[in-house]
């Protein structure tokens, strides 16, 4: 069971949260506007390691939070 500390509600099992996905981050090497949009909406960085992502505390305060997670081990990184 993974646990997340919601800044409003406290320590909670991750099944109370909805996964909002990675925060899109288009590589700077893509410079054309349309190409950047295409990459932003269809492609993923799919990081194997520490990534910053959004989670929504659906079962509690119903607010978003941004957290870091190591996708290699699937561990939430608590600050």
């Amino acid at each position, binding site marked *: *069971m993974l*646990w997340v500390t919601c800044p409003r509600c406290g320590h909670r099992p991750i099944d109370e949260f909805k996964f909002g996905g990675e925060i899109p981050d288009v590589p700077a090497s893509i410079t054309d506007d349309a190409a950047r949009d295409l990459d932003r909406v269809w492609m993923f960085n799919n990081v194997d390691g520490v990534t910053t992502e959004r989670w929504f505390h659906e079962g509690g305060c*119903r607010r978003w939070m941004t957290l870091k997670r190591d996708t290699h081990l699937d561990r939430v990184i608590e600050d």
Partner: protein
Amino acid sequence: MTDISDGQPQVEVRSSATPAGRIVIDNQPIEFFAGDTVAIAAIRAGQHPATGGTLCLAGDCGNCCAIVDSTPWVRTCQTKAKPGLAVLRQPAVGAPALNLTPPKSAVSSPIAAVIDVRHINADVIVVGGGASGTAAATQASADGHTVTILDANEGNEVVGIYAGPTVIVRTPEGMRHFHAHEVIVATGAADLQPACEGNLSKGIYTAGAAATLAETHIELDNALTVTSQPVRIVADDNGWVSGVVTADADGNDVLSDCNSLIVDLGHMGRDLLSRMTDERAVTIVGPAAEHYPLPPCPTSGIVCSCSKVTVEDLDGVWLRGFNELELVKRAALFGTGTCQGGVCMPYLRSFVADRAGSVPEPFTARPISRQLTIGEASAGAYADNFRMSPLHDEHLKLGAQMDRFGGWWRPWNYGDVLGEYWAVREAVSLGDVSTLGKMVVSGPDVVEVLERLYPNNVHDIKVGRSRYVLLLNERGHLLDDGMICRESETRFVLTFTSGGASFAEMWVRDWVETWGLDCHILDRTTSLAAINVTGPLAGELLRRVGVAEPPKFLQHRHETVAGVPCHIMRLSFTGEASFELHHPVHRSVELWQTLMAEGRALGIKPHGLQALFGMRLEKGHVIVGMDTELDSSPRRIGMEWAVKMGKPYFVGLEALKRVEPLPDHRRLFGFTMASPAPVEGAPIYHDGTIVGHVSSSFDSPLLGKAVMLGWIKREPFPDTVTIDGRTATVSAPPFYDAEGRRARA
């Protein structure tokens, strides 16, 4: 003790204690003593608890598995004997039958917690109450930790250690989920079992098992102990050990007679629990962590007793080129039975080391470490959370057939779909739309927020007016649709579809936060119920319940209706004049009952989703998720009019601009054809090839023909197509009241 069944008089009960009761093994009653496990009771009675094989009596192997009280694959060495317990030996060849009799707990819904489950927050968990576990617990305690020892001998079987670390334990009282800071695995060492010909005989015990039997005052008959791998174990016609062949110093075979064989071949660390997790807070101590020398490479007989894999099998796969430990395992199906390699792994490693010349790592440890039933695993969990409108009981009273839609129970019909349809078209009808998403947004930046969220214009919506809007994602594809109602310069009410409501709140909050704009959000989906009063007499009904002047089309206002505070929105999904009355959930029943009572004289009937889906189709209204697909843009569904490409920004604008010059190769069209209407999903053909499919269809009682929406996904778009072997005409919706006079009436 007398001989029963195929057993032999090999034991002697030295205790003078009286038996605690009887269990039944293969329909033969046997006595047991207080504290006996099923396996020990069987051995005491001169029997093997299963069909054969070395017994460890420590839960490591699967050789004592039997069908206990109808449940197959139960380790009898870990099952306490209870009076009346029925034990059947599992078939020696093949597998036990699937027991189709549901357990008592399945008679009721799985929602009822039958097995007690508790979540316990713990500091330090020590798995194993032996010497190393006790020592580790004492140390942790001295370091100021609160320690919980989980010992299988006390009935606390650790099923697995998962991320967290979370320790899942089966106890006599139920399932326990320990959420720990630290876990110390001190599970000790398991006895190696013999890997030689004859090792599936009855009457073979590991040294540990023999010690356990001694503790329970069972003395093995004519027992012999061997401390090196036997050459061969010899058995009688009943499968009981009658002797053992060992090699003497010169390598010559020597046969020794015995009725019981004790094998003392060394140990292997019970490290399965620590190997199945990558959790850093899990450590392993004591004999469990030790590296034991691998046994000599086996030369004959069954090596993996769960899956009956022989040395010959291992050689067979090796010679065929399967020369990786994992490939050998998979090809020979080695170590994939009850013990999951728990006792046979050293022999496999020893085999591969012998053939390959280097010692391989053990294969991956996968949960679970102790068998659990699916019922035990499921305890305490729920699959879904169905929501109910406050009008649920009213619908039932009116004979509604309820259906689940978007996570809610909703009336599918009230038993008279056609009557419901005509009530809307000719008189007045009520629809329960409590499930719609409803949200209040307010703030200095609210117009900016909505202009960015929606592709349509928002700033020019007048106070007291509303507008239909699409919600797009960043790909320019449809997420949802709904209404925007302006309440003041800086306050709006938004509606979303029933299925989209939960997502909509996440979506709106995410963007408002991302943009850093100043706008309050209050989701009112579950606080407000809503009743749609629709039909040519809807306005009249409202007047009869005290609304002197019902709002005009696309107007909305707050007004008390029959004593209930309502937000009345005038719109139309059915094609007739429609007033959605949004009101507090706890006043819904009285409002519904008043409307039904006052409407009786007008011919009122409630309508369900089934009639609604048909009526909206006559109007050509798209249902998001039913007519649209995950990648439907406004252009593809013919709703470019709801998109203002000239706006500086809205979510999805960049994508729509990017694809604007690309050819339009998919489009949702309206179709008509003679009744009967084809099944929804029916393929659409043109020139003999499939070019699309029908997304919704309806036999229009009013129009006397079938009306449809459907996708054509190949250019050029034809004017006529073939559906269901018949000709259908492409026909732009709406199919009914194209001018919208009735909705505005």
